[in-house]
Every structure is written in C-alpha cells, then in structure tokens.
C-alpha cells in the first residue's frame, strides 16, 4: 500500500489503478473481515443466547438455511473454478478471498443447523434443497467447466449474489438474534462479491458492447430459476406474497446499469 494516509487524504483521491489494487488485495480483505467477524467464531457471538422457537418456526428456518447452504456451495464451487479462468492477478487474488468467504458461509450455516438440532446437516440440505436452485447450481458449474468467464461471473456474482443479498437483508430484519448476527456477517461479504461481478462485467461490456446480447439471453434463461427459488425462501420465512418486499429490485437495477435488459 503506497497511498498517502495523512488525515486529510481520502480514498476518493486514490489513482484508479491504486484503488483497484487496494480493494482486491488480501490485506484489504483480511482487515475488513477482522472488523466484523472478530469475536464471532462461527458468525455469531458465542455468548448470545438462542431465543425459544416453536416447532413450525424452527422447521421453516431449517429449510431456509438448507437452501442458503445450496446457494453458498454453488458460489464456493464456482468461485474456486473461476480462479483458473481469471484474466489477471487482481481478479485471481480477489476470487481467492471469495472462496474463503463462501467456505465460511457454508460452515456458519451448517453450524446454525447444528444449533437447531439437525443431526446430519449435509443430508438435511440434500433433502430440503429447492430443485430450481439445484438446477441453477448445475448450470453455473457447467459455465465454469466450459471456461465461460463472463457467463459464470454474471450468474454467480451478479444474479446469485444480488438475490442472496436481498433475501439475507430481509431475513436479518426479522430473524432471531443468533441467525441475524450470522446473516450480518454474510451480507458484509456479499457486498464485495456483487461489486466485483458488476464492475468486472461493466468494464468488459464497455469494451465489447456486443457481449450484452449474449448475457441478456443467459439472464433470461437463468432468472426464473433463481427468482423462483428465492420466492420459495420467502414462503419458508412465513410471508404471504402481499407481505413480500420487492424481491429482485436491486438485482434489476444492476441488470439495467449493465445494459442487460431485454
């Protein structure tokens, strides 16, 4: 880090390359996560007591967490594959931090399932996974396997991360205290992931506007899978359709900024 750190200096004065090098660095990541995860070894303060929960609420929360696990496993597998496809060192280094974030998310959600009395978390996730989310997972991994960086970054870092961010924020606002703390840490990580995706694709599409058509077609194909599966999560959270917030608004705003509206 070579930036001026005098009291009057501010991030907006950084040279653009210097800014990108700073925010993609392991050092930046480490100091950032230390800020909000210190004292929360599995995403929540160990001293924080669980509130009593009735059977139906507990069962719905288990289903919701199982589907969060599916999303996070998808992101873990895809981001680790994307390290090999990354076009430069900034992106490789950033994706390595994303791999660590996604692994942590899987771990904290499985731990929360443990807390809720689930004996075999992996089996429970398989049993309760939304089929549309599983199909989305397969589609994203196929993109990674065929080396399609743009499609995979769109599917994972824009589509999936935006939707998770929306759902986790809403869930955190109504969740029990332990689940809320777990979600807050995950949301903080998601900001980096969705920002990386939008900015990487934005730069690429600025250079190659023709790529928009292809990504818009991929978007049209994948949207129903992800939007539908998160609609299911809202139901699992016990909300009627009328009570649901405007699911996908932030995602649609990102799609519009990237020019991927059809």
């Amino acid at each position, binding site marked *: 880090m070579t930036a001026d*750190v005098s009291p009057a200096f501010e991030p*907006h004065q950084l040279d653009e390359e210097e800014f*990108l090098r700073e925010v993609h660095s392991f050092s930046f990541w480490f100091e950032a996560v230390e*800020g*909000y995860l210190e004292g929360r070894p599995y995403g929540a303060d160990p001293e924080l007591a669980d509130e009593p929960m009735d059977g139906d609420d507990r069962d719905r929360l288990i289903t919701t967490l199982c589907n969060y696990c599916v999303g996070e496993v998808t992101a873990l597998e895809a981001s680790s594959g994307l390290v090999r496809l990354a076009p430069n060192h900034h992106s490789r280094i950033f994706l390595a931090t994303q791999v660590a974030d996604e692994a942590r998310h899987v771990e904290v959600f499985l731990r929360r399932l443990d807390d809720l009395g689930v004996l075999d978390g992996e089996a429970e996730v398989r049993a309760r996974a939304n089929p549309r989310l599983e199909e989305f997972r397969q589609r994203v991994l196929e993109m990674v396997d065929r080396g399609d960086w743009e499609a995979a970054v769109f599917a994972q870092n824009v589509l999936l991360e935006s939707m998770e961010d929306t759902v986790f924020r809403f869930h955190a606002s109504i969740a029990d205290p332990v689940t809320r703390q777990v979600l807050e840490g995950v949301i903080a990580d998601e900001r980096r992931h969705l920002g990386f995706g*939008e900015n990487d694709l*934005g730069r690429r*599409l600025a250079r190659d506007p023709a790529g928009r058509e292809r990504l818009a077609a991929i978007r049209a194909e994948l949207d129903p899978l992800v939007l539908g599966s998160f609609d299911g999560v809202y139901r699992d959270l016990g909300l009627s359709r009328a009570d649901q917030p405007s699911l996908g608004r932030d995602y649609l705003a990102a799609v519009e900024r990237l020019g991927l509206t059809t």
Partner: protein
Amino acid sequence: MSKATDEQAAPAEEQGNRSAVAYESVPGTVQPDEPGDGQAPRRTYELEDTGFREVPKRWRKFYRVWQGPGDSLAPNEIICPVCKVVIRSHREFRPGDRAYCMPCMSRMIVVRMPDGTLGAEVIYQ
C-alpha cells in the same frame, strides 16, 4: 481566516447525520471547483468513525450504513448505487466529483439527480 471562509463551515442542521461534524476550514482545504468558476468554496467536514467495519480501519470513517427511512444525507455524502452504503468525503460533494465505494469496489461520478439531490453513476471504464 476571512469571514467568507469561516462561513463555509456547514451548519449542524445541514449535516443530516450525527457523525458529519462541521469545523472551521483548515487553510488550503476549501477550494472552488475551478479558480474563478463563480461557485462558492466547498464546505469541509471532519469525519468520525460511525462504526462501519467492512473496510480496513484507515478507511472506515469514509463510509457508513444507510439507516433507511428517517436517515438523510449530508452535502458530503452520497449513496453507492451498487451496495447502498453511504460514501463520505471531507469536502462537500459536487457534480463531476469522483468517488470510490471500497466496500463493493465501485468507482463512480457524482451527478445531480432529476429531483435536485446528489446521486452517483457507476463508471466501468
């Protein structure tokens, strides 16, 4: 310090949040956009850490969480259109300024929105 410069310290009621504290401008920190452009010198602000923990310590005072309805932006604050964090500066923002959102790694330009407020447009190049 001239009276005119003293008047650039923003009144507390304009801050819109408890953390952006006006202070008497340090000589040399209040600059017009361009010499002779006819605009008033920019107001300057002393920033305090508001508890935002998602960036390394040295950058934390430049960001804060948007509190939703009831919250408001000071003249030295804009909202990141990508991740909705509030981005802050020592100086009042004006259209054309560059701003960086470190929490989501976005670069943007400050713009005047149709309703007259300041907003930001993400730049990708």
